């Protein structure tokens, strides 16, 4: 059991004891645990997003021969923090003629949805952040919530009453819904091999020989892996799939009209989504929390650090791609999905089924 797990168990035991002493029904322990878990996740997401934004800026700067943030704090570490504070102070502008309710709800829904994904991530061998979520359907849960993100985008785009926002939202909707399908199929391949929808089980299966038992090394899973990477990049709108917020065409796409706190929400959600993809990729193909040096970990590092580290590698790769490639056009994006990725996903499903049958 890891430090997080220990602390969580200890807190739970403490609370149960107190509540019993105060004659409060045990249900409230669960409720409190949910609240605390939620707050922890929110803080963590914010923190991760802040760090990621900083890393993104630095990576972009180095790739582009620049320096990047370097003024606020050592090496500009607090630059994103200051930016976040600045955003919080900013006036919240709702354009005249906008649908106020939708305009407000858009970022909230989007942020909510992307936080939900974090619930099923197996951070440690035993503890997930919220044990209450049924782990058996982990993959399904992720997919369900990632497809809900569309609603947040659409709400924001529609509610802004701006041509670019609307175009961006519609593009986003089309893109997310289309790419859902090959992504699902790619995930199904992994699930087929693992025989379980639970992310925890998938991780467990990759831990035995450390690095060598990762799904990454299984040739029949390479195609699903590439497919997942592409479709996930499309789901989270990073270049070359950033057409919903294509800056050169749609100004800022669906969040053109957002400012201040609401913009910060979209922004945070985007980056936490980015990280979530890294996490899922790490769980599915890079052995999750398991150490690359075999099990048990010879380095005795906390397990969640391995997971976060692996996810960071994936995120860095996505950033690298992001600063290299141009953007696809809408029709090309759709053609890529329906004409290339979807057949490829079916092919890979067939391959994996056959391999699974005879292995």
């Amino acid at each position, binding site marked *: 059991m890891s430090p997080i797990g220990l602390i969580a168990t200890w807190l739970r035991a403490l609370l149960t004891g107190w509540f019993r002493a105060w004659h409060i029904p045990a249900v409230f322990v669960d409720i409190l645990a949910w609240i605390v878990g939620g707050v922890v996740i929110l803080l963590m997401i914010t923190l991760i997003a802040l760090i990621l934004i900083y890393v993104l800026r630095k990576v972009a700067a180095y790739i582009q021969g620049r320096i990047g943030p370097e003024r606020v704090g050592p090496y500009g570490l607090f630059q994103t923090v200051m930016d976040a504070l600045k955003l919080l102070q900013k006036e919240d502008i709702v354009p005249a003629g906008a649908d106020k309710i939708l305009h407000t709800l858009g970022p909230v829904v989007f942020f909510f949805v992307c936080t939900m994904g974090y619930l099923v991530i197996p951070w440690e061998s035993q503890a997930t952040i919220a044990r209450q979520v049924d782990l058996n359907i982990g993959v399904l849960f992720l997919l369900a919530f990632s497809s809900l993100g569309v609603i947040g985008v659409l709400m924001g785009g529609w509610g802004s009453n701006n041509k670019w926002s609307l175009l961006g939202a519609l593009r986003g909707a089309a893109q997310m819904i289309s790419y859902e399908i090959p992504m699902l199929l790619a995930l199904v391949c992994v699930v087929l091999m693992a025989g379980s929808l639970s992310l925890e089980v998938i991780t467990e299966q990759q831990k035995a020989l450390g690095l060598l038992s990762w799904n990454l090394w299984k040739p029949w899973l390479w195609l699903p892996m590439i497919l997942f990477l592409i479709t996930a990049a499309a789901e989270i709108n990073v270049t070359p799939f950033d057409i919903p917020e294509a800056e050169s065409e749609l100004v800022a796409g669906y969040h053109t009209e957002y400012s201040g706190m609401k913009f910060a929400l979209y922004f945070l959600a985007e980056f936490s989504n980015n990280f979530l993809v890294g996490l899922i990729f790490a769980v599915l193909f890079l052995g999750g929390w398991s150490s690359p040096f075999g099990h048990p970990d010879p380095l005795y590092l906390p397990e969640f650090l391995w997971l976060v580290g692996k996810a960071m590698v994936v995120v860095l790769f996505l950033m690298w791609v992001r600063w290299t490639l*141009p953007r696809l*056009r809408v029709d090309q994006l759709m053609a890529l999905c329906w004409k290339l990725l979807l057949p490829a996903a079916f092919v890979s499903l067939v391959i994996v089924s056959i391999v699974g049958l005879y292995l």
Partner: protein
Amino acid sequence: MGPQHPSTHGVLRLILTIDGEKVRSVVPDIGYLHSSLEKIAEQLDYRQYLPYADRYDYLNAMGNELCYVRAVETLLGIEPTPRCQWIRVMMAEMNRIASHLVYYGALAIDTGATTVLLYCFREREMLLNLFEAAAGQRLMYHYFRVGGLRNDLPPDFCEGLRAFCKVFPRMVAEYDKLLTKNRIFRSRTESVGYLSPETALAYGVTGPCLRGAGVPYDVRRADPYYVYPELEFDVPTYTESDSMARHLVRQEEMLQSVRILEQCLDHLPGGEVNVKVPRRLKPDPGEVYARVESPRGELGCYLVSDGSDHPYRLHMRTPSYYNLQAYPEMCTDAWIADLVAILGSVDIMLGDVDR
């Protein structure tokens, strides 16, 4: 779209009719940057107007100066010294590279690849440093004077330029691999923004847009001025007539300009750069039409003198103005995303359009 939009390259407004993501019609609405430069010319004397010539196409200030100075000197009957001519050609070519680099980066941004812009500006910086050393400014040079130059080249100029010529082709190869050869970029630009040679003729399109349509027309060859007849360089043409062809023409042109620069450095003669001109420039009455090849196409200057010390009428034929007119033709059957990419490949300069 516009007038304030990240990728209209200035303050251009495009009135679009769209059907979903498909563009049905495009009507450019220009004039937001109109600064009555032609009227200003009538109030100033020939020498004073020269800094304004920079302001037409601010990425090609040297080329504009070249055009205006040529017109005035023809009117006055002045022939600049050989060294001056070589330096002017050199400056114009350097500015052509600098301008194409901005184009290159801007097109990359328009198609979503941010990094290339920074690389392009990295190389452009070397040129701007040279300009700064020679002319004292980094964008609006005002380096040419009627009858010569502001000053001769500074001592380390030629070496700096040689270093640039050495490095630059390698960098272009890098851009080529990073952007031009990229599959996504190619699918964004190939068979997009078709401009047939006939349409180009009808719309008076010149410059790389025309050469991208397969017509090897270059004022430097068709109506050579200064030392261009002595220089060896090719006029690159591509027959695909799409955005990619225009892009390749510019990429090739940068290398050709480097070739010209190297020849300039080898042949740069000594001697004075300035010829004696009267204190008050009073050309005989007459009119003149001077043409040069700007990075965007044929740049013409129609200048009428009535014998006084200021131009009676000055008119600049600015290439972007005419190239932009053909833009709606290129946008038939385009997507919204293409609009931006096509506009980038036409490489208009709003200062040049609105004047």
